[in-house]
C-alpha cells in the first residue's frame, strides 16, 4: 500500500513539475481586480467628459465635440488606464512569484507575453487605422475583440480560466459591434467588470489557497 502511495506522490509531483515548467502561474488575481477598477475609473472619466449617461447613444453622433477632441481624450484616458493596470499587474505578479519563490522572467512568461502581444499589436494598428479614417465608434468593440483574442491565444500558457475571460470579451465585443451607441458601457463591462469578476475568482481559487498553505 505504501509503495502505491509513494508512486502516486511521485506522479503528482511530476504533474506539478510539467505544469509549472510549461505555464506561467504567477499571474495574480489581484492584478485583475485592480485593472478592472482602473478601467472603471477610466470609463467614468469618459462619461463625465462627454456628459453622457449610461443610456444615451453618443460619440457616434457627437455634435458638440470634434473628432480630434474625442480621439485625443480617449487616447490619453486609455493610455492612463493601460499604464496603471500594467503597473499594478506587474507589481502583484512579482510579489506572488517572490512569495512562491518562482522566477518571473522564464520561457513560459516569455511565451505568454509573445502570444498576447501579437494579436494586441495587430489590433492596435487596426484601431489606429480606424481612428485615422474616423470610425471612432468602431474602436471600442474592436479593442474588446482583439483583447479577447489575445487572451484566448495566451491561455495555453497560463491558467485555463483566462480562456473563458477571453471568450467573454470576444462575445461582448461582437454584441458591441451592433450596439455602437453603448460603446462606453460595453467597454466598462468588458475591461472593468469582467476583470474584477475574473480577478476575484482567481484570487479566491489560487492565491488564497497558497496563503493558507504557507500558514499551515
Amino acid at each position, binding site marked *: 500500500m505504501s509503495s502505491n502511495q509513494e508512486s502516486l506522490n511521485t506522479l503528482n509531483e511530476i504533474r506539478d513539475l510539467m505544469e509549472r515548467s*510549461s505555464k506561467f502561474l504567477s499571474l495574480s488575481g489581484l492584478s485583475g481586480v485592480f485593472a478592472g477598477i482602473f478601467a472603471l475609473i477610466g470609463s467614468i472619466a469618459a462619461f463625465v467628459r462627454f456628459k453622457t449617461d449610461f443610456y444615451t447613444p453618443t460619440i457616434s453622433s457627437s455634435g458638440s465635440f470634434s473628432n480630434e477632441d474625442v480621439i485625443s481624450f480617449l487616447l490619453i484616458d486609455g493610455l492612463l488606464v493601460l499604464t496603471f493596470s500594467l503597473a499594478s499587474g506587474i507589481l502583484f505578479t512579482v510579489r506572488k512569484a517572490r512569495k512562491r519563490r518562482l522566477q518571473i522572467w522564464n*520561457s513560459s512568461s516569455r511565451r505568454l507575453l509573445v502570444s498576447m502581444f501579437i494579436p494586441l499589436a495587430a489590433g492596435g494598428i487596426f484601431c489606429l487605422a480606424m481612428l485615422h479614417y474616423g470610425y471612432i465608434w468602431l474602436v471600442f468593440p474592436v479593442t474588446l475583440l482583439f483583447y479577447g483574442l489575445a487572451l484566448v491565444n495566451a491561455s495555453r500558457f497560463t491558467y485555463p480560466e483566462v480562456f473563458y475571460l477571453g471568450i467573454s470579451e470576444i462575445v461582448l465585443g461582437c454584441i458591441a459591434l451592433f450596439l455602437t451607441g453603448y460603446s462606453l458601457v460595453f467597454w466598462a463591462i468588458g475591461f472593468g467588470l469582467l476583470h474584477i469578476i475574473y480577478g476575484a475568482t482567481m484570487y479566491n481559487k489560487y492565491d488564497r489557497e497558497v496563503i493558507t498553505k504557507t500558514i499551515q
Partner: protein
Amino acid sequence: MDWLENFNKVLESKIRLGLMSVLVVNESLSFNELKELLQLTDGNLASHLRALEEAGYVEVQKQFSGRKPLTTYKSTNTGQKAFASHLQVLENMIRQNL
C-alpha cells in the same frame, strides 16, 4: 509480472523521469531553468542529463548568448516514445496493485 520486463532502467530514477517530463512539454529548456525547476545541484543535474543523453533521450545544444555559454536541452523522438511507454508501464503497475 510482465510489466517488470518493460520497466525502463533509465527512467527508473525519479529525477530523470522529472527531467524527461518537463522536456516533453517544453520545446527546449536551458541548464539553469532545469536546475531551478528540479531544485538540483549542478553536478547532480549534469550527471542525470548525461545519462539521458547517452540513452539518446535528450539532445544537447551549446550556444553562446553574448559571451556566456548557454546549454539547452531538447527531448528526442526516441525519448518521447520511451517516456510515453514508461508512463503506460507505471499506469499498469498501479492498476495491478489496486
